[in-house]
């Protein structure tokens, strides 16, 4: 007999993972939450500590999950000195408190930098996905092999839901990203290219892998400046390295623009975070590629928040205009969640069945979930599919969730399109992968 978590994961390959009856799903989810709590309490020390301190012994209802939710800061709560001081064993011990990694399974002998450390964790069967914000300190979100294969299943079965795209490699691919790196978006883009693009016909922004140490360079430099050990020459080199990277990437974008212009009548795959997509669209328009002129079988993947208002307010409308008539993935999600919430025909974001949405009050203390109707609050969730870490997380997003059946006819709950960050509304800050890749691509990390 499959466990509740297995039953929920298996839905990804069903006819319509988002069309399950609400009440049945909720009961299965509650059972899966119990299973996930029991399993992760044994393996994730931070969850165990949290459960003991808040005296949560079992999950009798969704409200019991609230005190057990982590915030994104949990995943970057390591002391930076562990990295600057090269204390890789201690960093591993930290990682083992927030994930299902056993320190003895990872060989860190001879590790020299954070990239090698990340590789060693990966070699031990885990994938530490990183996300970063403006501070430069990155989060490490653990996935294990099962989580990665589940992610792959999601993209193969759900891409372009509610009108899923057949997994055929028929497109010419453009990935506005580096060749590799421990970021979920990079893996996601590459897997999409494997499934939907013609072999050997995918172009990258750069063949260089994304290096964690480079993403963290501003944080590390700032640390050394605070300690008084950074020299003026180092600071100056840091600045000029950023400038030359910006130039290189400008050249890369120009090359891709030319190629897209030459192949605009073919089906294409264009994947990139919103900031890169916006740059590309501006360049294509300047090159004379008109709005709505791409081949209708073109697949466009984008995402990432508009952190720091790097994009104009109407960027979504500009995307819609330029990519009019092509297949676009539209969804609401975050790296912390397996897959994301895709938009239905009515434009509402459907929460996948393996994710339990938990709408909280703004301080994140009280559960506001309802049987029916629209509830406004802070978006939190438990992703019961996750094996590599505890999937309970509080986001910084202010959302409206409709717990009634959606206008599209499917059972709820759905996240309505008006999603804002509490930070933008005058509250806290939220870290997203958009700023991460943007920092890397523009090379501007301070």
């Amino acid at each position, binding site marked *: 007999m499959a466990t509740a978590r297995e039953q929920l994961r298996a839905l990804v390959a069903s006819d319509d993972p988002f069309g399950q009856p609400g009440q049945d799903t909720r009961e299965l989810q509650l059972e899966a939450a119990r299973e996930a709590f029991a399993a992760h309490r044994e393996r994730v020390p931070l969850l165990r500590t949290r459960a003991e301190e808040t005296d949560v012994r079992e999950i009798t209802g969704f409200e019991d999950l609230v005190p057990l939710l982590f*915030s994104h800061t949990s995943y970057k709560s390591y*002391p930076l000195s562990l990295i600057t001081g090269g204390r890789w064993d201690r960093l591993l011990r930290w990682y083992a408190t927030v994930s299902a990694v056993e320190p003895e399974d990872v060989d860190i002998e001879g590790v020299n930098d954070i990239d090698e450390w990340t590789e060693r964790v990966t070699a031990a069967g885990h994938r530490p996905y990183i996300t970063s914000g403006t501070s430069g300190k990155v989060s490490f979100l653990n996935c294990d092999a099962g989580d990665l294969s589940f992610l792959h299943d999601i993209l193969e079965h759900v891409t372009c839901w509610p009108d899923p795209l057949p997994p055929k490699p028929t497109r010419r691919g453009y990935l506005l990203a580096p060749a590799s790196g421990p970021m979920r978006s990079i893996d996601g883009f590459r897997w999409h290219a494997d499934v939907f693009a013609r072999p050997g016909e995918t172009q990258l922004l750069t063949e260089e892998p994304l290096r964690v140490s480079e993403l963290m360079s501003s944080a590390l430099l700032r640390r050394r400046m605070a300690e008084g050990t950074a020299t003026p020459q180092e600071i100056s080199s840091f600045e000029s390295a950023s400038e030359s990277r910006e130039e290189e990437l400008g050249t890369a974008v120009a090359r891709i623009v030319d190629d897209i212009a030459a192949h605009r009548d073919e089906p294409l795959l264009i994947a990139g975070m919103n900031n890169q997509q916006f740059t590309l669209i501006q360049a294509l328009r300047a090159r004379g590629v008109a709005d709505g002129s791409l081949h209708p079988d073109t697949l466009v993947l984008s995402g990432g928040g508009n952190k720091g208002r790097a994009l104009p307010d109407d960027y979504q409308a500009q995307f819609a205009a330029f990519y009019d008539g092509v297949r676009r993935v539209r969804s609401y999600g975050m790296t912390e969640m397996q897959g994301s919430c895709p938009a239905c025909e009515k434009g509402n974001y459907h929460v996948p069945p393996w994710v339990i949405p938990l709408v909280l009050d703004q301080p994140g203390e009280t559960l506001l979930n309802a049987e029916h109707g629209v509830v406004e609050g802070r978006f939190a969730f438990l992703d019961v599919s996750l094996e590599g870490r505890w999937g309970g997380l509080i986001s910084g997003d202010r959302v409206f969730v409709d717990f009634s059946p959606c206008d599209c006819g499917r059972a709820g709950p759905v996240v309505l399109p008006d999603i804002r960050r509490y930070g933008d509304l005058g509250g806290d800050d939220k870290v997203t992968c958009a700023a991460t890749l943007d920092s890397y691509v523009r090379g501007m990390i301070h």
Partner: protein
Amino acid sequence: MSGTMLDTTAAGSVPVVHVVRGEVDHNSHTAHGRPGAAFTAPALDLDHLVWPRTEPGPAFQVPVAEIVDLLVETGEALKADREGLLAEALERMVRVSPLPAEVLERAYAVLWRSFQRPGLYAQIDHELGGADVLDGWREVRLPGNRTAATRAFPPRLVHIIAGNAPGVAAMSVVRGALTKGVNLLKLPSNDLFTATAILRTMAAVAPGHPVVRSFSAVYWRGGDETVESVLFRPQFFDKLVAWGGESTIRGALRYVGPGFELVSFDPKTSISLIGREAFTSPETLARAAEAGAADATFFNQQACVASRFQFVEGSWEDADRYAALLCERLGVAREFSSAGGPQVATELREEIDVLKSMAPEYRVWGGYDGRGLVIRSPEPVDFHPDGKIVDVVPVGELSEAVRHAGVATQTVGVYPDSRKADLRDALACAGVQRVVSLGGAGGMPPGLSHDGFYPLQRLMRWVNDE
């Protein structure tokens, strides 16, 4: 936080009084603040906030002795609070300040101390070399048998004051009065009442006195360009005296230019160094922990002199013994702190929860209830301990801790006193401004430098007759 928030209705908003050139401003009130901390203040009349340069300020020619007498009398009046002005300010302050009422009460009860004659003369004598240069032209001998005269001429000052401790307002009024210049004080939203209560008390002591007419204290939203771009001009003021956070200082910098100077009391933080002598006996350890706690809890750790990182010379076990005792002492009420305090913010709790899971490298004493929490860690933590949280870090030698001091480090408390002499040059080299005996961080004695300079000397305009 929600427990301390105010009613958001109009009836619940707190009225702020303005003083303009020594008189209470009766302009109609406008609404300010945000839900939960709403207040009203009189609409600004910008023309009345400047003193035209075509005429000397009211107090330019008043002898210092008379100003000192006025300040001392003001101090006596503050102590007695005959007019009930401090009581009124306190009652309003309690409704909007993040500090607990008992701490505010005790701070108000000692505001008068800034107005004592010996302290006032200590500032004049140590910072300016005597009252003569304030009252007239001091003759100076130059090389080549030449003579010249110099005078500390009254300046025109606009002050952006900090509100984390009521004493800042008192200190600003004292310094402004001793300069004999004209002073516009911008009230901070976390202390909208102390400065005006002091100025009104002074006005009650000597109605219409030139020094009284030399002061205004009003509120506008910090950074409001419609006010600041108009007032922050050399035609109206010589110097901007700015306290506070980075955004305040950076905002102020936009207006600095020829003829308009910035005197900045920069954002600062403080640390403590505890020598191995603390472990000589249970008594010495208790003494060090009590002194460390006093320094850490000044204004419930809201002040810049409040210590947040304490470096202990010894093993992890030694540091743990100190940390455990320190945590006990953090929960004790003192003159400028309360036994309880603000609950630890959620973001900090997350970070501390993780550290708890990383024993034995990290250990944590105390809880999140605001009575005090101590973390012992092998390296300083990355986050900013705030709200009665102290990070205790063991070091092999106190000299190793010096690398954790920098230009943002204001006060370093050292235990025992005898260790200060060996450390002070290195600390000064790193950027530190004050080295004090542990337990002595709170309160700055008048007549010494502040943030690395002599404020009174810096506020004056130095004019020569050659």
